[in-house]
């Protein structure tokens, strides 16, 4: 057989992924351990595109954790469960990739596939991860969380406000994705046509997070219908994958 998916750190990654963190402190711990492993992944090591994303994600999750400790959110039960459920999807995608499963979300597969190179610039790499995680994972994480809390995605609620509060954390942590790059993004989007145009109208994260909330509401309505639900899942995966591939293409380098 060919060499294992995670190269020399394969065993460590598999062992780490065998654990399923169930609270936010454990998620942070998990991401930190993962970071240590990813930067040891040849050939790119510290500049591994997945490590670029993981680093950013770790920073953001640490901020969320601090926010929870600092009483920043109105409904910490909702937010902490969402955070755990959200992260679980990233770990799930890695687990599927580890098994070379055809079920790996395409949105993630395009980033995972680049771990062996060629190198991509850190900003578009991180952005590709953010894209997969927000455009694909987040709506489903939201629905699962609401379902388990016997609540619902309703605009203007405490949960919605807490959810939007995360945008500020993203904004703090990814200045590069904000205004400074706006014009270039716009230019890039202009070169494209169709679907992707819908995905970008303002600032990437805020806009896509809003899209994720809308998508969650959409999935919420069809969550008891397996066929419609699967259809929605495939649609989101395809769209996120298209954007992800674009970010990792030479065009993406243009962002940085």
């Amino acid at each position: 057989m060919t060499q294992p998916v995670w190269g020399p750190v394969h065993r460590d990654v598999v062992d780490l992924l065998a654990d399923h963190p169930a609270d936010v402190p454990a998620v942070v711990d998990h991401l930190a351990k993962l970071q240590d492993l990813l930067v040891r992944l040849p050939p790119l090591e510290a500049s591994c595109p997945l490590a670029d994303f993981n680093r950013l994600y770790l920073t953001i999750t640490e901020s969320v954790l601090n926010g929870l400790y600092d009483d920043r959110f109105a409904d910490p039960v909702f937010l902490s469960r969402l955070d755990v459920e959200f992260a679980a999807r990233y770990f799930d995608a890695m687990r599927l990739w580890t098994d070379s499963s055809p079920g790996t979300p395409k949105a993630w597969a395009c980033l995972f596939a680049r771990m062996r190179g060629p190198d991509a610039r850190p900003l578009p790499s991180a952005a590709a991860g953010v894209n997969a995680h927000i455009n694909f994972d987040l709506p489903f994480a939201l629905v699962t969380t609401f379902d388990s809390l016997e609540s619902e995605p309703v605009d203007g609620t405490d949960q919605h406000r807490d959810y939007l509060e995360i945008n500020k954390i993203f904004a703090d942590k990814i200045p590069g994705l904000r205004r400074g790059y706006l014009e270039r993004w716009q230019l890039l989007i202009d070169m494209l046509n169709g679907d992707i145009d819908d995905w970008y109208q303002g600032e990437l994260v805020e806009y896509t997070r809003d899209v994720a909330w809308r998508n969650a509401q959409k999935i919420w309505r069809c969550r008891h219908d397996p066929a419609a639900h699967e259809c929605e899942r495939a649609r989101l995966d395809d769209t996120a994958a298209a954007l992800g591939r674009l970010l990792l293409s030479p065009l993406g380098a243009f962002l940085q």
Partner: protein
Amino acid sequence: MPSEVDTAPLVGRADLVTTVRSVLLDDVTQGKTAAVFLTGESGVGKTRLLREVAGRLRDAGALVLTGSCLDIGDASPLHPLLQALRRLDAELTGAQPRTSSAVRGLLRMFAEETAAPDGAGALLERVSQGLHLIAEGRPLVLVLDDLQWVDRSTRQLLLYLLAGLGDLQLSVLAAVRAESLQGAHPLRRVLTELRRLRTVRVLDLAPLDRAGTDRLAAAVVGRPLAGEAAELVWQRSGGNPFVVEELARDLRDGRDGLSDTLREIFLARVDALPRHAHTVVHAVATGVEPVGHWLLAQVVRLPEDEVIGAVRSAVAHRLLVSADDGYRLRHRLVAEVLEHELLPAERAALHRRYAEALTAAPAELHQARLAHHWRLAGEPARALPAATAAAREAERLHGWAEAHRHWSVALQLAAAPGVAAPDVDRVTLLRHAAEAAHHCGEHARALTLLEELAAADAGPSACALHIRRARYLAAAGRSAPAEAEYQRALEAADCTPRERATAAAHLAELLLHLGRYADAGRRAREALELAAGVAGSTSEVVLASAALGFSEAYLEDPDTGLAVMRRAVETAERAGRPEDVACAYLHLAELLTGPLNVLEAGVVVARRGAERVAELGLGRTYETRLLAIATNGLFRVGQWAEAEKVVAAALRHRPSGADAVELLLARCRLSVGYGDVEAADRDLDAVATMLAGGGARHVIPLLTLRAGLAMWQGRHDLARQAVQRGLTESRSDDVGILAALVWHGLRAEAEAHAGRAVAVDPTALRRLREVADRVARKSEHAARPVRDVVDGFLALCAAEVSRLESNDPELWARAVAQWDRRHHPYPAAYSRLRQAEALLARRSRSATAAKLLRQAYEVAQGLGAVPLTSEIRTLAGRARVSLEDRPATGGPATGADGDELAALTAREREVLAAVAEGLTNREIGQRLFISERTIGVHVSHIFDKLQVRTRVQASAIFLRNRRD
């Protein structure tokens, strides 16, 4: 007819089968539960493995029940269980008449179930009793396939049984399609929580490796495949056993090279089918599996022997399987392939034939299937009555989620063009749909339906609508709009006096929950005045009195509030409606044990109320709730032995949901105090199992107990983890609960500091102090009763922090004073121990320290608080303080009046009396309603205190000292 043409061997799963068998059977101790959830992609062999394991467990003497969940989203509640029971019923051939009659009895119970308050909980209890009868002492295994389609009622039943609440030795083996879990499936969250428990395993079924693939292919073909062919199978199958088997079969039969994908494999086979077999396969694909033979025959409209011939051929082509209860497609993947092969008109025609055939012959899931087929046949007018009937059927079994879906379908059908059914009233449909949505937590949907109802011509009055909307909004946690709706109801012109009283009472309750005590009191008084003028408004009186009682208690006029609440009990007793009486007692007991902190009186009321409501036939619901209040009160006043009895009595009702969680937490609190690690762990796991299905409110008490238990075990790191999780998942306005949690966190750090086995975490410490400060700030503005609770814990927090630095005895003295004032002996004794420790460390006032230790020791001994007692003993030993030194009362073994037993607690004497009767620990446990394990703990304490080694010696001392 053979069910399969030929079956390939199970390859590469031997270890897994062994593991699952031991988890589900060999490792399960008497009376416990276990579960294995198998996840894996389609075709990886989950169903096959279930069958294999089920067979082995059956051979080993287990009673195995097998069912599968259905993907028609509008199935019926508890369908997989009912299916499993029917299958078992069919298998029992008269050789086991007792089991057979137990199975029929349970099935009859389902058939006779009627909607009732707390029906869902009572149903769970009856199901577990029924299963108990069926099992007859054998281990029971519930095997469920396609769990991704499980209905909500079955999900709750599983958690209830796995939490051990059914008092049944049960194992669950379930398969879940991994693909389904990728989306927003509710099971994801359930599995995340369950997989942390020791008794639950979530096993991911991976595809076969290369060697396994080769072995399976060789077994199918009959000889090892040549290099190129083997490589081809491996490449194309990716190790998926289902695909390997089919590819290998094609190779063997000389059909190689045709099929790149499964889709092509099956399409080729479908194409190769004879005409009738083709028809049969499509008919089964359109039906709801299993499709009975008679039904298939009617749908395909062929003579008997032609149907049989066609089925044979479809089975031979490996598209269909046949079992006693009917036909199924060989695999879900086949259904997906076939889905696109029929024209819409062909499919609709098949559905019509199903519907027609089923109309004539009622069967399993009758109405749901009828509705399904008529709808897909494009006959809304005929589907409508079936959907309505299915909704009522679901409501009968308390499946509100399913009922809601059926009502929604009914509404859609009623709106279809051409459905002018005069007998179906749209307003009625809307009303039912909204209420079902409200009950199953679809709040937004319930509100939308209510808007449609408001727009309808013959809808309810404006006031009734406002009240209903307010109720739905309050249930959704949207208090501000709910308050506005109650206001509107009160202002509505068409509001009847009764409705006005209702709205005011509920508004008062809502305001109370929002902490607006003055407003709540005002509204409650208004409600009481309104209710006084309306006959039969006892419920409103009870509700408003409770709101008034609590608001007065918070506003520091407790006597007035108490008087109002006591009057409400009398009013309810006079009116005589059981629910009102029960609610009144409940609120009175909560008021006394809660904000008023008059624990003894509260316990008396709770116990008297429990007896009273049991007479009124509300044992399962209100009696358990009242007993939970009594238990918690008894725990706090230090009557643990009594608390233990009460909680055991309450649990005999096999409560479910939040009631069960309350009681399990109460019992666990006792076990943590006693230091009975195993019993505490079991209750913690049971609570976690229940909470996996929802219920965020109890998470913090659970984590607090987990931390407390971990500390007695010296696992300060685990305690820290539990507290950290709690801090990130609690609302800062629950100051009382948060304060207790923070104290546990600080105590863990302080004990880590003292014990040195685990390092102190400075970040955790900083955060805990910040949260403690925040709690202090917030509680400054809280009502007196809330502040009292918080102050006790904050005093402990301050003292624990000091323990990490100078350990100031004065801070511990303050904690002692706080808890003494509130009459809570346990935390007071703990604080005395620490105060003594701090004094001794300063080598000052050792006489005071000795006195404190003796006081603490006496309390801890009296409670039976083993770990605390042993800490006191250790410290006393180090400080050479004699704990037994009480010359005035005489030393042991001197008096003639039972003094040898003086050191025993009341509970220990009871246990010893039973030991002297020659009972075993299990028998004693059954007699005293506590676990065998707890008895073991008591017995070892008795031996310890009496300084004996055997039961005979202990019995001798008991008999010598018996006062008779």
